[in-house]
């Protein structure tokens, strides 16, 4: 509207800073390899050619937390592993997001006992929960797209 209709055919696009930065963030969000159990196999399956996740910019899974901005907690989190998860989350630079993949990561899943943390959101703040045991690769991709929608709605005020 307005300026764009006059300048559009000169090859100029006007947008707000928010939209530009959010578009950049969703365009190539690199996930960190945090596959713990069975959901990790479905995560690998969604990386595989049948349900390609690299269409969404997630071509590589970085093993190092310092180089990634999305942590997909895939699998059951045991009490021995919980401090490790928190330390890796702290090592990720901001902006960072967390997807809790699967029932065990979201709420403890099938296991309600001494050894499993009942929901990863006791340890790290979660942005998107993906349900399923294990969730289909399409469900994980839907979760990733939901996260992209959420990121596109972020405001400048929340960054600082």
């Amino acid at each position: 509207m307005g300026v764009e209709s006059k300048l559009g055919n000169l090859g100029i696009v006007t947008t707000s800073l928010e939209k530009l930065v959010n578009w950049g963030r969703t365009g190539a969000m690199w996930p960190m390899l945090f596959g713990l159990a069975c959901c990790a196999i479905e995560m690998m399956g969604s990386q595989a050619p049948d349900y390609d996740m690299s269409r969404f910019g997630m071509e590589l899974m970085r093993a190092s937390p310092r180089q990634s901005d999305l942590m997909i907690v895939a699998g059951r989190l045991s009490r021995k592993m919980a401090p490790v998860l928190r330390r890796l989350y702290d090592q990720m630079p901001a902006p960072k997001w967390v997807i809790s993949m699967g029932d065990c990561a979201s709420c403890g899943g099938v296991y309600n006992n001494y050894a499993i943390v009942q929901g990863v959101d006791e340890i790290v703040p979660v942005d998107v929960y993906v349900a399923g045991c294990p969730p289909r690769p399409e469900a994980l991709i839907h979760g990733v797209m939901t996260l992209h929608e959420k990121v596109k709605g972020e405001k400048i005020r929340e960054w600082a």
Partner: protein
Amino acid sequence: MGLTKLQMNSALQAITQDLGQTLGAKGSEFRGQVSALVAPERIVEATRALRDKHGFNMLAALSAVDYWPQREPRFHAVYEFKNIPQKLRLELRVPLNGDEPELDSIAGIFPNANWHERELWDMFGLHIKNHPDLRRILMPEEWAGHPLRKDYPLGYEEVQFTFNFEEIEQRKPRPKE
């Protein structure tokens, strides 16, 4: 393939009779599987006899069962042995009394008993004597208690539904950021 059920049974019966005479073991059978009850002091001797004299060359499994609140015996340590050339399997059960029983290690005879016995210590609290490296294996080092005992609670947490959402939300730990 291999020995028929009848032959296998007679070979195993002969072995359990031999163990009974030399070590006082009591044999029993259920659905074709032969099991022998051995006293805890004789377990190392029995294992050595099985390996050297009777040819049982692999320790297939080693675990325990807790019979709390019964105290005599409170635990049964279960050893599964396998004779590969003759295709035989034999189970040894060792009854253990009391809350902190001691058991001799057979890691000198079968090296793979090392981790199995660490798991017995971790999960049941059976103290293994002469073990080269007795530490917890599955639970974190600082854990208190032995989870697979029957008097250890399951750790069931109340599930957060909509009707009790607020009250559980107050008690549930949440990260600050």
